[in-house]
């Protein structure tokens, strides 16, 4: 797999269609993933605001758009609630966070970071995106059906627990098919990433000279390759149960609304085991790439080498490995053998350890730095601050007796939003700002960036921190309103309202990002090749990165984090071969 013959400029300029739509270039595919996911981020965020409105003001009309969406008085009908909340979860996980982190940044950065012209299998890469497009079409059909038809909108949460998902309306089948497409897209992507990182690294770029972003993408790809087929199997089984009348998850002798159910012989817990065997690793798929990118952003922003680079790599590996043996901690109250619960409790406590090592190493990276508070760094620091909260709140749930009380309450909702929004999405905000010049050749506006960061950080916390409190009181997840639990939870209603208003403001704050993004694509300040004075290989080529990345395959002389080494400037590119280059090995 030689990279020698691909000096890019020799190729003729491709047509518009080949260049921007039906492209096999990793940078174009990365941007396509980015745009598609951002659209779904808007849709999924909008759906949950409708849900939040009903929680704050049960039965009251949604202002401005209620009549248009729901007819009647304009209130969210209770029977729409499950559709809205299930669709929010499914979209955010499978169509927003995973495609942004892995599809967009994985695609864009991996070939640049390993110093090669493109992915190992460019056509397979394009196929991965177009399979994702298939999924998008299927899920959009589901969304439209859910809004249009009163009968078809029943869903079963993003976790799709049967028997409910086996009975739910036709929307469910579209969602299942969409998720199968997403799964295949992920598997193809993972094969590509693993091959590219393992086989196409530039001369001198040993494993322990890879940036943490790429390390995280590599381990994430391993997770995807091993776990996603299990999800695909589960989804196929469930689809067959729904469409072909097979029996995997539904036992016999059941009745639904007085009618016997034509299934027998299935086991509902089987689904939960298979689903979480995928979906717990998927939780790490949702955060590992963000950890990698935040590490790079922090190191560049603080002008400091990553504290304990090898420990960071090993803790990513440990999280991924342990991630496969903790799945049943989602099932402590499911009726699973309680002795099994003890085992999974201990493995869950163990997985907190590598995460805590990473947090301390991020602190160590900032220590004695010269921290530059530009937008990427602010977002990366916010990632650390929020991930700490999300990580610590996880310990309550790992403690099985406390989990009995917290399970399926808003405490869980707060916990995973601190990891996935406070963590992953803030890292994504930072990464978009950081790599924007390499993507589009222009800088994003710093002032707007800081305004967006501040509004997001403020309203994120005012929306989600208080969810811990309502969750502690017992506020259940996936309730259309707490009208029937007034005696226990009525005094929390003002908190529900505060959460809702904050969430609306949080949604509006994203308009700043959208404006800044599109304004900067066309009108932003022209970017230099290396605007952040960063060390990794992508900053040695012009901005935007040329069609085939590198005219000459770069030769790497040391690790990616040689900041402040005392060679006259506070950084040293990986391709610099200064005589006094410090060893990339740890001291």
């Amino acid at each position, binding site marked *: 797999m030689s990279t020698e013959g691909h000096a890019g400029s020799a190729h003729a300029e491709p047509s518009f269609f080949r260049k921007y739509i039906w492209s096999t270039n990793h940078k174009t595919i990365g941007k396509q993933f980015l745009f598609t996911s951002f659209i779904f981020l808007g849709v999924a965020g909008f759906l949950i605001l409708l849900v939040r409105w009903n929680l704050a003001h049960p039965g009251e009309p949604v202002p401005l758009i209620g009549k248009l969406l729901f007819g009647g008085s304009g209130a969210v009908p209770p029977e729409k609630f499950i559709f809205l909340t299930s669709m929010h979860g499914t979209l955010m996980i499978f169509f927003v966070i995973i495609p942004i982190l892995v599809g967009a940044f994985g695609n864009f950065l991996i070939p640049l970071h390993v110093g090669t012209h493109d992915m190992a299998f460019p056509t397979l890469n394009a196929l991965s995106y177009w399979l994702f497009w298939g999924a998008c079409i299927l899920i959009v059909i589901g969304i439209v059906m859910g809004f249009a038809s009163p009968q078809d909108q029943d869903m079963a949460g993003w976790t799709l627990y049967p028997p409910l998902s086996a009975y739910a309306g036709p929307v469910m089948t579209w969602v299942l098919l969409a998720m199968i497409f997403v799964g295949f897209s992920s598997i193809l992507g993972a094969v590509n990433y693993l091959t590219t990182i393992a086989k196409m690294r530039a001369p001198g770029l040993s494993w322990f000279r890879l940036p943490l972003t790429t390390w995280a993408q590599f381990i994430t790809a391993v997770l995807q390759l091993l776990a996603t087929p299990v999800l695909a199997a589960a989804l196929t089984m469930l689809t067959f149960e729904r469409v072909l009348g097979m029996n995997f998850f539904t036992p016999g002798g*059941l009745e639904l609304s007085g009618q016997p159910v034509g299934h027998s012989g299935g086991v509902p817990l089987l689904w939960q085991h298979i689903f979480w065997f995928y979906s717990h690793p998927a939780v790490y798929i949702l955060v590992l790439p963000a950890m990698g990118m935040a590490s790079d952003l922090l190191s560049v922003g603080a002008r400091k080498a990553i504290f304990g680079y090898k420990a960071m790599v090993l803790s990513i590996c440990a999280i991924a490995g342990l991630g496969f043996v903790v799945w049943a901690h989602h099932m402590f109250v499911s*009726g699973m053998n309680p002795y099994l619960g003890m085992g999974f409790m201990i493995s869950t406590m163990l997985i907190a350890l590598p995460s805590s090592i990473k947090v301390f190493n991020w602190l160590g990276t900032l220590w004695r*730095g010269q921290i530059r508070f530009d937008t990427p760094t602010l977002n990366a620091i916010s990632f650390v601050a929020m991930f700490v909260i999300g990580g610590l709140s996880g310990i309550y749930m790992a403690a099985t*007796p406390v989990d009995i009380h917290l399970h399926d309450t808003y405490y869980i909702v707060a916990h995973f939003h601190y990891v996935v929004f406070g963590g992953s999405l803030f890292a994504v905000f930072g990464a978009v700002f950081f790599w924007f010049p390499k993507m589009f050749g222009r800088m994003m506006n710093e002032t707007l960036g800081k305004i967006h960061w501040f509004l997001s950080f403020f309203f994120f916390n005012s929306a989600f921190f208080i969810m811990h*409190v309502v969750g502690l*009181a017992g506020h259940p997840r996936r309730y259309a309103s707490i009208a029937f639990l007034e005696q*226990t939870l009525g005094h929390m209603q003002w908190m529900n309202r505060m959460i809702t208003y904050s969430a609306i403001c949080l949604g509006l704050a994203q308009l700043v990002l959208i404006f800044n993004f599109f304004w900067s694509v066309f009108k932003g300040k022209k970017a230099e090749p290396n605007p952040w004075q960063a060390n990794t290989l992508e900053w040695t080529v012009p901005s935007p990165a040329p069609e085939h990345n590198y005219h000459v395959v770069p030769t790497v002389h040391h690790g990616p984090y040689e900041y402040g080494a005392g060679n006259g400037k506070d950084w040293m590119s990986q391709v610099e071969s200064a005589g006094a280059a410090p060893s990339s090995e*740890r001291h």
Partner: protein
Amino acid sequence: MATSLKWVVGTAFVSIGAGAAWAQDAPWGLPPGCSTIAPEVDWLYNFIFVITGLVFVGVEALLLYFCVKYRRRPGGKPGYSHGSKLAEAIWTVSPALVLLFIALVQLPTWAKAKIDFPDPTTDKDVVVVQVLAERFKWSFRYPGRDDKFFGPAQDIRKADDAAELDDVILRDFKLPLGAKAVMPIRSIDVIHSFSIFNMRVKQDAVPGLRNRVWFQPTGFYVAPVARSSLWVNPEQKFEPTSKPAWNDWEFIDSMQKYAEKYGSKSVAVETSPSIGFSGGAFRPMSQQAVVTVYRNDEILEKRPVAEAEYVIVPYQVACMELCGQGHYTMVSSLTVLPPKVYQHWYEARMKEREEFALQDDLLNVWKLWRD
């Protein structure tokens, strides 16, 4: 090692002291724990709260401090370091010890909650109540006059003449003070989750799976009855209140305490359908409603609702696992009663069963029960 042990023990000690105050300081903490397992769960919660609280404050403060101290200055030079093995060893080993301690300290509580069930055949305090979940209702079965549940599953399915069924089946359930409830749980359609906030109880009802749960309530709340009638429509809107209702109620954990405080008062011993909760208080559902009143150790049935000065507060039971569009309406209640009132109530329900056949909707779902 010795220092870290001292630290852990010291933290544990502090958290025991501050425990009850934090865990149950509504609206910021857990709802009041009213079962024998609750103090252990709440202690564990507080213990983790102290540890994670210290780590949270420490890490975030350090992060903020570093951001200020190591902000970029003109001409400043960053330090050059790739890490320190000693520092990394310290912050690997110390969280590991703390996590190990949390893992070990919780095991007895988990065993008590989910493994060591009281034995109904030997323990006289045990009351067995079966729970059946359907969309979107709970129902509860007591064994009735013969003290036996209606025999094997085939029998109840053949019970075409509902009159021969002496089991008491209801939409909510009651327990005598001091009883240990052992509750087998089944579902006839989808997965539900049986949850009582104040008991720290939660167990999924999974079709085809024989789940069960046990707990022992330690008492009940007595609340004054407000005189203004209930007027809001519980389907749609409710009036939020600023503080938890139970802050104003009295918790009764023994019959001596009950006799001292409420012995001579008129206490309504059941709420639905006569008395409802709205706007932070219990109110009569209508002026014509009748209630059963407990006063001077006497049980008076069918008294006008205006007579009731106080009411025994039911604990809310909720479904916590998404079960469909009406999930949020799947709410029931547990009322803990003075033993004498409970006996009276149970006798009346058994008599009712002798006189009237079980309603078809209940009989039909209970035919699906599997032992």
